[in-house]
């Protein structure tokens, strides 16, 4: 099961991307193993409904929680339908900080 975090750059010192659908990268965090990888967002340059396509894409990968600065209204509907939780941290939060917060809960 995975947590997906929208990222500006492909490393953990990156800020969480302020937008979900058009972020450059997704950080996929394996919530059981604690490992992570960065994948490029294949829909970031799409002319339309990039967010909904990205939502389906992440759902197929077994994502149960998504973290980004903002979610478009259509995307919010899609994630609600998919039963995937959405989280919006304070602007400027770093990926590493999110990982720390998630790890604290595991204990």
């Amino acid at each position, binding site marked *: 099961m995975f947590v997906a975090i929208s990222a500006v750059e492909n490393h953990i010192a990156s800020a969480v991307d302020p937008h979900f659908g058009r972020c450059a990268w997704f950080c996929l965090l394996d919530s059981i193993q604690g490992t992570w990888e960065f994948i490029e967002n294949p829909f970031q340059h799409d002319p339309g409904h990039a967010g909904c396509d990205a939502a389906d894409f992440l759902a197929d990968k077994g994502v149960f*929680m998504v973290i980004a600065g903002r979610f*478009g*209204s*259509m995307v*919010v*509907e899609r*994630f*609600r339908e998919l039963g995937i*939780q*959405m*989280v*919006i*941290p*304070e602007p400027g939060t770093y990926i590493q900080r999110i990982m720390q*917060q*998630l790890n*604290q*809960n595991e204990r």
Partner: protein
Amino acid sequence: MRKLCRMARSIKNRRIQMAPGIGGFKPHGMQHRKGPDVFIGFEEYEALKLCDYEMLTQAEAAQMMQISRPTFTRIYEKVRQKIARAFVEGSAIYFTGGHVKMAGWYHCSRCQITFTPEMEAAPVCPFCSSSLVQKFS
């Protein structure tokens, strides 16, 4: 002749995702006396956000807000006119409440996150599992 007095139909609440994150706007660099304050309701803000920022069609936006298309068009054209008036007359804009109902977002002040709960009946913070979360408005 007895006058028939009829109440206008009561307004159904419009569904919005979230209230605006700012209080409004103030003009700067004023040469002349500023115009009267302009108040934009949360549903008007939402209408503008859906159509002009997220580029939804009016049909999609109306569905999102759970209102009819004519109602949506009325709200949308009203807010566009308010903004144009504020720009031209140099008025401050204030976002105020309206006939709205919020979709289910919650806030954990400890973790500083806004989130959708797994179960709306018993919302808990997905980071710290605290149930001391507030409905976000």
